[in-house]
């Protein structure tokens, strides 16, 4: 037991190496923000493509559904390895796309963003869809009878309501995304988990990992409470609706 405490809860060790762990966690945070933003946008695009009306849009809908099913069905780690290992070699792409170094981040950072966006976009698309489907038909009818077209209805009536409704699942998925950024460590990106493991291998002490875990909790615990509050707020509101 003593060994466990010293191996994992060595607080002086944590303090001594807090700088480097924090630097790693900062990369985690940035990766979550970028990947999260892109995933939210890509997910919305997918959700809208999926609900395009009309016969001519059938192939578009079919491809979108296939995309969503496929990328919700493959482990993110595989996507990360595929993107990280192969993108640089796809010669038809321009160099700035194959080896992206925007804003000074290393290219493995952007591979991580890409892989996460590809995968979490699919998850978010389903969340959007659930929200869109949950908006009562009467709303749509009222909007259309005012002369608002499909797109205006989607933009001003459906989406605002849909997004409010699915805020809890969104926040949950975003928390999962934030934790999954640690998978990008397999490409060598010095995020929180990788830094913890490097400390472990050099000093034979895993307390850096515990410190990393605590830093994650700093974000994920408030997010969880936020989700609870949102759910409570919505329950109150919808109980009062006619």
């Amino acid at each position: 037991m003593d060994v466990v405490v010293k191996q994992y809860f060595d607080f002086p060790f944590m303090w001594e190496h807090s700088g480097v762990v924090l630097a790693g966690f900062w990369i985690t945070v940035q990766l979550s923000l970028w990947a999260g933003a892109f995933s939210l946008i890509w997910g919305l695009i997918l959700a809208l493509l999926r609900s395009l009306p009309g016969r001519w849009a059938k192939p578009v809908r079919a491809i979108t559904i296939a995309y969503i099913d496929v990328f919700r069905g493959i482990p993110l780690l595989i996507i990360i390895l595929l993107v990280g290992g192969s993108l640089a070699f796809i010669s038809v792409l321009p160099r700035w796309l194959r080896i992206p170094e925007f804003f000074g981040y290393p290219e493995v950072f952007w591979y991580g963003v890409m892989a996460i966006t590809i995968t979490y976009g699919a998850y978010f698309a389903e969340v959007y869809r659930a929200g869109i489907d949950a908006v009562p038909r009467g709303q749509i009818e009222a909007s259309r009878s005012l002369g608002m077209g499909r797109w205006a209805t989607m933009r001003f009536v459906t989406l605002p309501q849909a997004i409010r409704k699915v805020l809890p699942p969104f926040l949950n998925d975003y928390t999962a995304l934030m934790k999954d950024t640690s998978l990008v460590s397999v490409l060598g990106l010095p995020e929180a988990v990788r830094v913890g493991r490097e400390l472990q291998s050099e000093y034979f002490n895993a307390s850096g990992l515990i410190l990393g875990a605590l830093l994650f909790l700093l974000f994920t615990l408030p997010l969880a409470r936020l989700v609870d509050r949102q759910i409570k707020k919505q329950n109150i509101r919808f109980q009062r609706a006619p």
Partner: protein
Amino acid sequence: MPPDAPLLRLEGVTKNFGKLEVLRSIDLEVTPGEVVCIIGPSGSGKSTLLRCVNQLEPTTAGKVYLEGEEITACKEREADVIRRRIGMVFQQFNLFPHKRARETGPLAPETVLGRRSAEADERGRALLERVGLSDKVDEYPERLSGGQQQRVAIARALAMDPHVMLFDEVTSALDPELVKEVLDVMRELAAEGMTMLVVTHEMGFARDVASRVVFMDEGVIVEEGPPAEVLGNPREERTKRFLGLVLAH
């Protein structure tokens, strides 16, 4: 357009849902300023008729003309344009829960007609005042009573300056004590000359306000005429039976 040419004309309008025939070749004309009340048992197709007018339901057969323009044959985008001239109020209000009362009216005019916000807001407030809700302009629908919500819905429809208003059993979902405030607004609208097509169970309203009453049953118009006739002295057996049932209590 000549002054008494019909604002709205339905020609042989037929609607099937699968094998179920809900509307069977309906012919109807509504002239400007007319208030036509449609009564009948549930399942008679009254609501469907209304929804075919603004193409919320596409017709299986037959044509609908608004001010001489055929709206049944046009593409979706054109139908959107035509719907601007037709206002509709629903039984379930269908207000936008994320919009305050004063924001509801201007939404469509701003996005569809491109009106500037100051102008649209002004108009929205004026309409809310007209329906008697100036003190509720900042409220969200969830904090309004049913009658208040329905009045907001009427104001919302009016914001687009429609040429004809469709009312689909707009008081059926209201508690009895809230019905009057909505009917009063409708009375005023009629008095101001709005062309209205009203599906309702409120016989008192029909008798007082309608220029014409139409009795529908099983997808056809059984009888139509001035309220005094249809309601007071119906010709058809079916009409008598229905009124007997409705007026008995």
